[in-house]
């Protein structure tokens, strides 16, 4: 490789609290070198400082943060000393940024052309006509549909995956030397992720652009990056060639990241599962505002002590199914039996005891806990409400429940804002346990959490099931999780179940074509996975989905 294009030397970035006081270091003593055409993956959990480093490559820090030490050199120029004008000329022109949420990064009131051509025109790199021709060329390279007219659309008129690719086109419009990619595929479904990942990789390789690829998913970054840097708490843990990190990690933390998703969660013995179904759905249909059925003729049964995973991509109706079972979205036809008795369609008509028996755990623990209530009150309320517990008895029970979710008893006095993401999710679980339910519906409970934290939550759920014999309906898009925890799987597509049965049956040949698409789209921990999948799929694109692009 030739001379380096970007260099960071003992970079230190500090967050300044608003009301004075000492600053908190977010990034400490990080060195980084990037050569032309090389992609460096930055890996770490939330709070590791990876996005902060990515932004620092543009000479930018988030409000309240400051580069307090070290240097950021772009082709020998220190961005820390550079004038605001010099940095402005650099951004977009030489160093470009791709954000995680394309939907939030595009202006909904302007066409894609207007936004993609803005950079080259403002920087004086190209005239309007040329920028337009360039954009069309980029759309073609990114495999976007009808590239000539694609740019005339508004952001809401294209799908999430297309918008993310449009953002790649926007970033590439000035042919920058460095591309900073901040979790560009994290918000996408696995099948869409593959398309975007392949498109971005092709683009970077063809234009010989250097890249900083920021993500928490090691398997994803392994497909794109030449080298990988592992970060934790703002410090570098390990850096090396992609293969070396995956196959021969040196540090314990990296090893934990690599080995994750491989161990199977200990499951209750098959004998613990009763043969009588606890919950039975028969040809259940439901819709919002009497439009198309979002839940369309679902048959499903769950037995005590069993975990049934409902898998599907966003919009497949899996969360709506949970709402139908809980009664938030009353079913329009079909039958739901619970303990052999018909369940009232609407929530308001169900008895308190029935409500107690079906509990729900949500995806985002941040909004599932009332920020103005202490943990004591959050967990204690179901105890008071269903069991009429009060005073010392309730306090004791809350302490027991905190113990069951591996949190110390002092946490009872904390507010949700004083807990980490994983701790919040544990409190949500404890609140559900407090009701002493028969059935727990877990709606994407681990997808908002860092891998190691999610691991802990899965272990906890597994242990609780072994000890207390709950039945779980586990709604998720993450096949890796399903493989590890489920007894049975139901694959949903457009409101219907397309494949259902035991884990071994559904996830083994002969596959339903959609199951196969889902399975093959899950990134694996080896650097040649994406090449293999793309080669296997050949020319075939979107073989199953009938949804409009």
């Amino acid at each position, binding site marked *: 490789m030739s001379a380096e294009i970007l260099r960071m030397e003992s970079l230190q970035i500090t967050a300044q609290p*608003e*009301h004075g006081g000492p600053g908190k270091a977010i990034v400490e003593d990080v060195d980084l070198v990037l050569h032309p055409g090389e992609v460096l993956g930055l890996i770490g959990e939330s709070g590791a400082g990876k996005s902060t480093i990515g932004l620092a490559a543009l000479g930018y820090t988030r409000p309240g943060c400051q580069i307090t030490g070290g240097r950021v050199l772009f082709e020998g120029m220190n961005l820390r000393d550079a004038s605001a004008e010099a940095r402005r000329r650099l951004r977009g022109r030489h160093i470009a940024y791709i954000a995680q949420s394309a939907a939030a990064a595009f202006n909904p009131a302007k066409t894609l052309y207007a936004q993609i051509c803005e950079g080259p025109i403002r920087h004086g790199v190209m005239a309007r006509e040329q920028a337009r021709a360039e954009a069309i060329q980029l759309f073609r390279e990114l495999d976007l549909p009808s590239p000539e007219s694609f740019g005339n659309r508004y952001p809401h008129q294209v799908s999430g995956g297309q918008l993310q690719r449009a953002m790649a086109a926007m970033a590439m419009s000035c042919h920058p030397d460095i591309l900073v990619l901040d979790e560009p595929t994290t918000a996408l479904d696995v099948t869409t992720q593959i398309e975007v990942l392949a498109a971005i990789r092709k683009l970077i390789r063809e234009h010989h652009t250097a890249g900083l690829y920021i993500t928490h998913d090691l398997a994803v970054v392994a497909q794109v990056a030449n080298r990988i840097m592992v970060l934790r708490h703002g410090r570098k843990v390990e850096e090396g060639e992609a293969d070396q990190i995956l196959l021969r990690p040196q540090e314990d933390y990296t090893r934990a990241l690599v080995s994750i998703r491989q161990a199977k969660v200990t499951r209750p013995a098959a004998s613990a599962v009763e043969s009588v179904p606890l919950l039975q759905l028969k040809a259940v249909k439901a819709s919002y505002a009497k439009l198309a059925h979002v839940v369309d003729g679902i048959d499903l049964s769950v037995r005590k002590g069993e975990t049934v995973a409902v898998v599907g991509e966003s919009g497949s109706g899996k969360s709506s199914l949970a709402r139908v079972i*809980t*009664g*938030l979205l009353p079913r329009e036809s079909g039958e739901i039996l619970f303990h052999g008795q018909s369940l009232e369609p609407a*929530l308001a008509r*169900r008895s*308190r005891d029935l*409500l107690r028996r079906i*509990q*729900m755990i*949500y995806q*985002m623990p941040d*909004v*599932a*806990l*009332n*920020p*103005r*209530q202490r943990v004591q009150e959050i967990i204690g*309320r*179901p105890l008071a*409400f*269903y069991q009429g517990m009060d005073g010392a008895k309730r306090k004791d029970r809350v302490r027991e429940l905190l113990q069951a979710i591996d949190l110390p008893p002092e946490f009872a006095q904390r507010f949700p804002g004083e807990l980490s993401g994983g701790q919040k999710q544990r409190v949500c679980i404890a*609140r559900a346990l407090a*009701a002493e339910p028969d059935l727990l519906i877990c709606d994407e409970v681990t997808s908002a959490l860092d891998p190691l934290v999610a691991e802990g939550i899965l272990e906890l759920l597994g242990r609780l099931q072994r000890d207390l014999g709950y039945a779980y309906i586990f709604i998720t898009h993450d096949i890796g999780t399903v493989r590890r925890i489920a007894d049975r799987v139901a694959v949903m597509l457009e409101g219907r179940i397309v494949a259902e049965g035991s884990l071994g049956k559904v996830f083994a040949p002969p596959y339903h074509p959609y199951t196969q698409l889902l399975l093959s789209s899950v990134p694996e921990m080896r650097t040649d996975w994406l090449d293999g999948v793309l080669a296997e799929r050949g020319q075939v694109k979107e073989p199953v989905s009938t949804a409009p692009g």
Partner: protein
Amino acid sequence: MRIFGYRISVGALAGFAIVFANLFAAIFAPVIAPYGQADLVGDVWAAPSAQHWLGLDSLGRDMLSRLLFGARTTISIALLITICSFVIGIVTGFAAAIVGSWIDMVLSRFVDALMAIPTLISALVILSVMGTSVPVLICTIAALDSTRVFRLCRAVGLNIAVMDYVEVARLRGETLWWIMRREVLPNALPPLITEFGLRFCFAFLFIASLSFLGLGIQPPLADWGGMVRDNAQAINFGGMAPLIPAAAIAQLTIGVNLVVDWFLSIHSRTHGEGA
């Protein structure tokens, strides 16, 4: 210096000082006022003197004493009005936000209809039909004012009602009243407190204008708006008598607004941190 754990600006400090001084005057008026509010103690519109610091009014009553007693009636009635309007507005607004469907429809359209008529006109009509006793005054203005509170509570409540923790409470089988009180209200407090301060000022100015028109608080009870009207004629003779109660109205309005501004600033700041 900090209040509720937040740094306080000079403006907010001045605001708090003004508000507390007014509250002090209102509560201890009978103790600190040199004369009774209805006592005739000297010449009409006598100039300020050592005995009468702010002079005398249109009937020869002590201006300072009436100002202190006026603080009592004006502030307490404005406070009652604001509290009543908030109780009505919060309950209906949150109910509309949480339940939605036809309840929201009916309440919102009713409020739209009420807001279409200028408040002062509605108040004048109701007060001239029902009479101008203090309870009628309070109920009328509170009801008219609650439309604004309803709109705010509905808007704030809608954002909170979609949170998963509200859904959790519904799934648990909690009543509407509980959800309103324990899940939604605590999270809506910052904007509501701010609005409370603003609405208090409006209520206060509204009584002043009603009093000025003769439909507000009736004599001999002193109130600041009425005092401006009673002494308005003094302007013709170069007297400063009407300016004194007018200044009292102004200072309290400014004081409350300074406090409200501070609440607004800390509220927007915490939102920024969350983003």
